[in-house]
């Protein structure tokens, strides 16, 4: 059963509805054309549109892509196993400093820096998770929160690592000095993370992860090693976060300790939840949105005009805008549409992948316990 599910691809996931309702739906040639046009439009937006933009704009776009990676990193933990990390800024920040330190102080190449950041991210998660993952849920959230504070108050105070108050320089890699080349590099990394994430969830362990989120006790009676798998997810999440940090460092070409505050950790959580847990497309869109919020505010002044109508409110600077808008969206998402953006765009995503357009198809994928039977 398990192997079968894996080999049949996306259609098998929704189970009965697809099999029973419309087993042989094939889009008409016009349908394919329409889908092709939409795909091309998306490709144009992601690949061609940024070409020839100014450097500071490209840096924002790269940041949006990198935030996508960070969002996916949290999605592994929060979406797949249902554990929450409120200290993810520590993983991202330490990844950033690791890569900057290796490139600037050790004179090694960017690729070594990125690899080290990924390794350090995973290792951190392994150690922290190894010690603390016997406790889960609320208490685990506490531990990660406290760890984030330790990173802020202790680790980022180590002068050699962070380069002191001015921060550590992190030059762009050879061959990717220009901002648009670096943007494409970030896209490639995002694609790799998406691919790894997708493959991981296709394995038996991946489905076991989902099962243990649904009900750890039932999952463990089916032979799932709950603690080990949770730790595994945490390590993957930490590695992704380290990668995101390294890319962020070289995008800004300088990392400073003040960036990695508790507020940022909350923004990471918020963008993942608003994006929609367990929906890769949703998470990436949500994360990119939060990275671009300030930029969008500058670009489209309509929101700013609306806010000016509130009496007595000072101007909303882009940095604060993220902090104000984020929680509002989060609370709306949690109380109204728990599936976030991913839930809203699901009909479109289904349609784009060659299924019938069904506006009512908002159902979140639920994994069957029997899918992971050992």
């Amino acid at each position, binding site marked *: 059963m398990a192997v079968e599910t894996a080999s049949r691809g996306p259609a098998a996931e929704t189970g009965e509805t697809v099999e029973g309702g419309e087993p042989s739906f094939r889009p008409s040639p016009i349908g394919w054309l329409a889908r092709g046009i939409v795909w091309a439009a998306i490709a144009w937006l992601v690949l061609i549109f940024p070409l020839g933009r100014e450097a500071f704009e490209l840096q924002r776009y790269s940041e949006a892509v990198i935030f996508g990676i960070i969002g996916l990193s949290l999605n592994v933990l929060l979406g797949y196993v*249902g*554990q*929450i990390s*409120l200290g993810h800024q520590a993983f991202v920040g330490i990844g950033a400093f690791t890569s900057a330190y290796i490139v600037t102080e050790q004179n090694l190449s960017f690729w070594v820096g990125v690899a080290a950041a990924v390794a350090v991210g995973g290792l951190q998660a392994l150690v922290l998770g190894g*010690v*603390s993952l*016997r*406790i889960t*849920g*609320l*208490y685990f*959230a*506490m*531990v990660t*929160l*406290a*760890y984030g*504070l*330790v990173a*802020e*108050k*202790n*680790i*980022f*105070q*180590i*002068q050699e690592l962070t380069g002191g108050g001015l921060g550590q320089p992190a030059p762009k890699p050879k061959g990717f000095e220009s901002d648009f080349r670096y943007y494409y590099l970030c896209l490639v990394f995002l694609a790799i993370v998406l691919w790894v994430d997708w493959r991981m969830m296709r394995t038996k362990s991946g489905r076991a992860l989902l099962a243990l989120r649904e009900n750890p006790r039932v999952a463990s009676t089916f032979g799932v090693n709950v603690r080990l798998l949770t730790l595994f997810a945490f390590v993957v999440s930490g590695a992704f976060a380290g990668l995101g940090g390294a890319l962020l460092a070289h995008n800004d070409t300088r990392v400073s300790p003040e960036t990695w505050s*508790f*507020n940022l950790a*909350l*923004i990471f*959580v*918020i963008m993942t*939840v608003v994006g929609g847990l367990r929906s890769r497309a949703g998470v990436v869109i949500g994360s990119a949105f939060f990275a671009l919020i300030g930029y969008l505010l500058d670009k489209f002044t309509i929101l700013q005009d609306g806010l000016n109508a509130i009496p*007595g*409110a*000072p101007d*909303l600077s882009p940095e*604060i805008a993220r*902090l*104000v808008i*984020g*929680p*509002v969206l*989060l*609370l709306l998402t*949690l*109380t109204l549409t*728990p599936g976030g953006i991913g839930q809203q765009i699901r009909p479109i995503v289904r349609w784009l992948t060659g299924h019938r357009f069904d506006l009512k198809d908002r159902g979140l994928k639920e994994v069957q316990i029997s899918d992971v039977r050992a």
Partner: protein
Amino acid sequence: MDRLRERQGQVITAAVITLLVLVLLATGEKESLVIGVITGSAYGFLALGLVLIYKSSGVFNFAQGEFGTVAVYTLYLLHFDVPYGFALLGALGVAVLMGVVVERLVVRPLFDAPRVTLLVATAGVALLSIAVQIWFGEATARPVGRALPTLDRFTVLGVQISDQRLLLLGALAILAGLLAWFFNKTNLGLAILGSSQEPTATELMGISVKRLSTIVWALAALLGGLAGVLAVPETGGFAPGVLTVAFLIPAFTAAVLGGMTSLPGAFLGGVIVGVVEAVATSAPIFEDIPGSPGTLLVFVVLLIVLVARPQGLLGKAG
């Protein structure tokens, strides 16, 4: 069996405290003891509110610190224009109002959601509150008046303590006692406990669980507000989110240390965390730790407690 477990907790608590005091006296860190107890009482104050909400609805309330910050902010805005006493009342009123609003708009719609979802939601409330403070005010520290303008100082074990600190400590001890009485003896307190353990059965007894939830959040917000207006003026000034940034983690550690459901435990935990932090800051052996050693030590304490005795010092297992 239950009694044995309780007694075990008390024995461990007594041992930990004796050990801590002995080490402090032996190493000549008497000052740390006094300073720690005083700072710890502020942590304990915040921890009381955390425990209260956890006891009744099983939520880790990350907005608890913000109840205090909002109260301090209101106090700051009011205390130029109206007598201090009224400003204080206004500040506490705003905190309670915030508690009720949060309960109505955030907690109630998520009544049946997983507890982790609620945790994320309260963290969102905290961030929103901080963001609005930065937006309307500035991200700078500002001074706020004290409840006791007298500035009397007392000397305990060679350390000077202001009268406001003693007021804080006294208020905390009294409140911890009052709350313990409230939960053990009054009908309302017992109803709140019942609603946390058996919501359905409580409903069947003719008690509205939802109304209880509102009362609990208002009460917790009042405690958070009190913690803010009593503790913050002593630190000289406040910036947006001051209680969340500086107090929330130690307060959570205190609550976990005390067992998360025990009110006296929260008080005790706060004091222990305060002492640990004070020692870490002043003792020479921790000098080599970069940044603030207190944060690291509190984290280590939290990890040890969670791994070795997850039910805390005075909490019940299970």
